C-alpha cells in the first residue's frame, strides 16, 4: 500500500519509465473488460432460455408469484406429463421425425444425383439448367404457398405425409454445394475409378460421395434444422391434430386468452427445441463452419 502511494506520489519523475509498464496494465484492463462484457452478454442473451427452463419446473401457483423467482422454490416435473397429455406430443414427434428424416434423405439424394449429372455427364444447355435450379432460390416456399396448397388439395394430399414431405425434396442449395464439392475433386481420382471399371453409380457412391462427406454432413444438418422448424407449410397442409408437426403443435398449445398454463406450455416448448439443441451441441462445429463458409466464399 505504502509503495503504491509512493509510486503515485512521485508522479512525473517516473514518467519516462511509464510506457513500458503501462502496456501490460492496459492489456490486463482490456482482458478484464472483455471477460465482464462476455459474461454480461451471455447472461443477457441466454436469459430467455433460462427463464424457459426455470418456468418449466415451476408449479402453476409459483408462476403467479410477483416478483418472479429464478430458481423454483419447489421444483416439479409435473409440467412435462401435463404437456404430454394436453396435446398429442407423441404423435407430433413421430410426424416431425418422419417428415424430417425422409425430406433430408430426399434432399441429399436429389442434390447428389443432380450435381453428378451436371458435373460428369454430357447434356445440352447444362448452364441453363443449372441457372434454372439456382433461380428457384428466388421463389421461397412462402410466396407459392397458395398454388401449392390448391394442387395438394386437388390431389387429396391434405393431412398426409406425402403432402408434408414432397415440397421439401427438391433442393437448389444441395445441388449447388455438391456441384462445387464434385468440381473440386482431383480429376485423377475420377479417372482412376473409370480405369478400374467403375460405372457411373459406383463412382458416385464409392468415390465422390465419401470424398464430399463434410459437405453432405453440413448440408444434412442445416436441412434438418430447416425441415424440423418449418411452420407455414405444415400449418396449411394439415388440419387435424394427429398430422401436426411439433412447431404447429406448440403454437396450438398456446391458449388465446389470459389463462395460459405457462409451466405446461414451457415444458411443451422444451419438447420442441430439445432434439435440435442436442443435435446442435453435438455437431455445432459442422453447422457453424458450414454457415460461415457459405458467406466467406460468397
Amino acid at each position, binding site marked *: 500500500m505504502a509503495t503504491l502511494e509512493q509510486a503515485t506520489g512521485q508522479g512525473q519523475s517516473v514518467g519516462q519509465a511509464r510506457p513500458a509498464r503501462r502496456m501490460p496494465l492496459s492489456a490486463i484492463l482490456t482482458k478484464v473488460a472483455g471477460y465482464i462484457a462476455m459474461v454480461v452478454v451471455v447472461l443477457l442473451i441466454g436469459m430467455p432460455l433460462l427463464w424457459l427452463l426455470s418456468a418449466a419446473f415451476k408449479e402453476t401457483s409459483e408462476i403467479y408469484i410477483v416478483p418472479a423467482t429464478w430458481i423454483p422454490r419447489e421444483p416439479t416435473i409435473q409440467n412435462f406429463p401435463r404437456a404430454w397429455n394436453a396435446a398429442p406430443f407423441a404423435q407430433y414427434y413421430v410426424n416431425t421425425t418422419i417428415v424430417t428424416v425422409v425430406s433430408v434423405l430426399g434432399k441429399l439424394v436429389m442434390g447428389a444425383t443432380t450435381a453428378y449429372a451436371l458435373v460428369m455427364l454430357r447434356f445440352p444447355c447444362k448452364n441453363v439448367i443449372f441457372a434454372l435450379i439456382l433461380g428457384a432460390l428466388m*421463389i421461397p416456399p412462402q410466396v407459392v404457398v397458395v398454388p401449392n396448397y390448391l394442387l395438394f388439395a386437388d390431389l387429396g394430399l391434405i393431412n398426409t405425409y406425402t403432402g408434408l414431405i414432397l*415440397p421439401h425434396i427438391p433442393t437448389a442449395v444441395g445441388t449447388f454445394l455438391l456441384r462445387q464439392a464434385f468440381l473440386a475433386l482431383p480429376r485423377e481420382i475420377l479417372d482412376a475409378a473409370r480405369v478400374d471399371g467403375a460405372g457411373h453409380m459406383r463412382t458416385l457412391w464409392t468415390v465422390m460421395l465419401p470424398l464430399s462427406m463434410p459437405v453432405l454432413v453440413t448440408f444434412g444438418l442445416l436441412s434438418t434444422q430447416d425441415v*424440423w422448424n418449418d411452420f407455414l407449410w405444415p400449418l396449411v397442409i394439415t388440419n387435424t391434430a394427429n398430422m401436426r408437426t411439433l412447431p404447429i403443435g406448440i403454437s396450438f398449445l398456446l391458449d388465446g386468452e389470459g389463462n395460459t398454463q405457462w409451466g405446461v406450455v414451457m415444458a411443451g416448448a422444451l419438447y420442441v427445441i430439445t432434439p435440435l*439443441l442436442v443435435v446442435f451441441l453435438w455437431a455445432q462445429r459442422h453447422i457453424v463452419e458450414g454457415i460461415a463458409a457459405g458467406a466467406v466464399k460468397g
Partner: protein
Amino acid sequence: MAQAIGTPGPSRLKREWRDWLLFVALAGPNLLMFGIFNYRPLLYNAYLSFYEWDFLSPVKIPVGFDNYVDVLTEPHFHQVLKNTLVLMSGGVCLTIAIGLGLALLLNQKLAGRDAARSVLFAPYMLSGAAIAVVWVYIFDPTYGLLRTILSPLGIVPPNWLRDSAWAMPAVIIVYTWKNLGYTMVICLAGLQAIPRELYEAATTDGANAWQRFRHITIPGLAPITFFLLVTGILASFQTFDLIHVLTRGGPVDATSTLIYYLYEQGFVGFRAGRAGVASVIQFAFLFIITLVQLRYIERRVTYAG
C-alpha cells in the same frame, strides 16, 4: 471405307445418348419438382391475381387489374408495406450491429469464448414457433420476464403484444434475438478472413487500435456486410412463424407484413386474387434484391480477377 469412318460415329453417338438418358434420370426428378412446386405456382399466382375467386366456387371471375388497384389503394395494405419495411430495417440493422459487436468481442482470446459463442448462436437453430411461445410469456405484462426485470428499476413495461405502438418493437426484439447468432458467426468468419499481416504492418506503422479498426477491419468486413444485408432482407421478408405466434399480425394490423398479408388473404379471407397480388409483389421484391446481389457478385469477381 464408309464403314471405317462410320464405326466410331454411331458408337460415340450411342455413348452420348446414354449420357443424355442418364442425365434425365438423375437430374430430371429434381428439375421436375422445381417446375411443379416453384415455377408453376409462380405463374399460377400471376394468373390468379387477375381473377376474383374464393377457392370453392367453380367459376373464377376475370377482373383485370381490379385486384391490383384494390390492394394498392387500400390503407390496410399501406400499413402492411410499412410494417414490412420497419421489420426489415429494424431487424437487419440490429442483427448486423449487435452481431458485429459480439464477433469483435468473441474474436479476442478469452477463455470460454467457444461456450459463449454456442449460447449466442443457439437461438438461431431453434424453432421460431417454440421461441415465440416463450417470448409471449416473457412479454406477459403481469408475470413476464421483462416485467420482473424492469419493475425494480421503476419502469412499467407496456402490454407489448396488445399495444399497437409496442407490438412491432416486440417482434423486432424477438427477431433480433433469434438471428443475431447467425450474423455473429458470419462476422467472426469475416474477421478471421482478414490477413493478420495487415494488422501487424499497421501496428508497426504506429496505427492505434481505432485506426486499425477504422481502416482495416471495417473495409475488410465490407463484403460480409453486404452478404448479411441481402440474407437479412430475405430472412425478414420470410418471417412468418414469429408473427403468427406472437401477434397474428395484430393488434389491428400493426405487425402484419407482406407474407402475413398473403397468408391472411389466402387462408383466412379466401381471396385467391388478392393473395396472388401479394405474392406477385413479394416476388418482385425478391427478384430485384437477387439482381442487385448478382451484379455485386459479378463486380467482386471482376475485382478479384
